[in-house]
């Protein structure tokens, strides 16, 4: 596997959320808005990349019997560091993520990558794997976050939780279009509120997984059809070959008495 493939595999082919269904707890709990999803994703990228690097560095010295507790201590250290830094420099994000920030420790994606990849590969590949998988995880969270926030409020805000800029800004809002015709219309009054609640997370995730499964099924069907066509073509070729062989054999059979007569 090339370094590029190693980096890109986490985005779609082996996406932790939509393909492996890993890290479902934050995927359902903190994806209320685009910004909380992005915040959680970035924290996971940091923890996953750092823990992969350290696990890869120390793998030779950690006895096989105690590798899991040792990896958990390493992951927990990075999560604690991230928790303190977030509490100090992004207090709104810290409040919004709540208990799910320390729960990154038990995100099976992080321990899974440490165990399955970092403990068997070199530092550079482990770092690339951590970064790629982390960004793939972030992409998954952001997709759910955007869908949920847009359906619940009719727009996407930025700058509420992350310490970027002085004031929150509206990235997208249906108000921008509708207010051209009706100035008193507020799309937030008509948002589907359930999408900002936990049941909405399940519905949004289900919708996105359905799209992924539909695309996968269509791809599988195309492959199956191509396979069937190839088998049919092979059968046809084999039949033609058999037919040609039979004709040849019959011709040889007919030609054999004539040759014998000519010989006499």
């Amino acid at each position: 596997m090339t370094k590029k493939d190693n980096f890109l595999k986490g985005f779609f082919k082996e996406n932790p959320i939509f393909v492996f269904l890993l890290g479902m707890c934050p995927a359902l709990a903190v994806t209320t808005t685009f910004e909380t999803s992005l915040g959680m994703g970035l924290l996971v990228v940091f923890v996953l990349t750092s823990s992969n690097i350290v696990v890869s560095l120390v793998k030779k010295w950690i006895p096989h019997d105690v590798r899991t507790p040792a990896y958990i201590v390493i992951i927990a250290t990075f999560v604690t560091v991230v928790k303190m830094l977030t509490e100090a420099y992004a207090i709104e994000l810290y409040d919004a993520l709540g208990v799910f920030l320390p729960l990154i420790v038990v995100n099976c994606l992080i321990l899974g990558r440490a165990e399955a990849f970092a403990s068997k590969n070199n530092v550079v590949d482990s770092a690339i794997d951590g970064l790629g998988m982390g960004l793939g995880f972030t992409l998954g969270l952001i997709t759910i976050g955007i869908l949920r926030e847009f359906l619940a409020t009719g727009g996407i805000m930025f700058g509420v939780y992350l310490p970027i800029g002085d004031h929150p800004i509206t990235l997208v809002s249906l108000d921008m279009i509708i207010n051209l015709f009706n100035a008193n219309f507020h799309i937030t009054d008509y948002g589907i509120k359930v999408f900002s609640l936990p049941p909405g997370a399940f519905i949004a995730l289900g919708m996105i997984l359905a799209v992924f499964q539909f695309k996968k099924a269509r791809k599988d069907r195309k492959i199956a059809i191509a396979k069937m066509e190839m088998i049919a073509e092979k059968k046809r070729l084999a039949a033609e070959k058999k037919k040609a062989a039979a004709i040849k054999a019959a011709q040889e059979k007919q030609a054999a008495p004539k040759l014998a007569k000519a010989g006499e």
Partner: protein
Amino acid sequence: MLDKLKIALVLVVVGALSGIIIYSVNELTADTIAQNKIDKEVSYYKDLFNLSADTNITYDAIEIDGYLDQEVTIYDNSGDVLGYIYKATDKNNYGEVTVLVGIAVDGTISNAVISSTTNTPTFVQTIKDKYIDNFSNQAVDSFTIDSKTGATYTYTSVVTIIEAASDYYLENRGE
């Protein structure tokens, strides 16, 4: 035996390094976190008396023995008492709920806020969004509670703290 010692030594080293890293980051961020907590607490004080974020207030906090943790006296710019804030933490089956209750000098509940909790976030949000504001402007000696929501653990904890704050106010500050 040596193998077991080696395993123990590795775990000790991993734990020690982890501790050193966490200690260093804590040293780096402790002051900022403490300042953030103070700023947050002050912003709650302003919210409790419906003051804008840029209003200057001074306050005097004292620890209280008993169910309530703290009484904070809030003064405006001219040094007049705006009211009192009572802080307490109640434990229920789902964890802890810390509530700040603001009581104005005229004996009405100015507002109450849940400053931190380990209860189920969805239930807490429902209480914050729909029910906690109902205590505003009610007299401390005769406020009503929502009997339907009163069945939830979070709401029960909030009510318990508001009742304790009201009792304390009537006993010590009421005229």
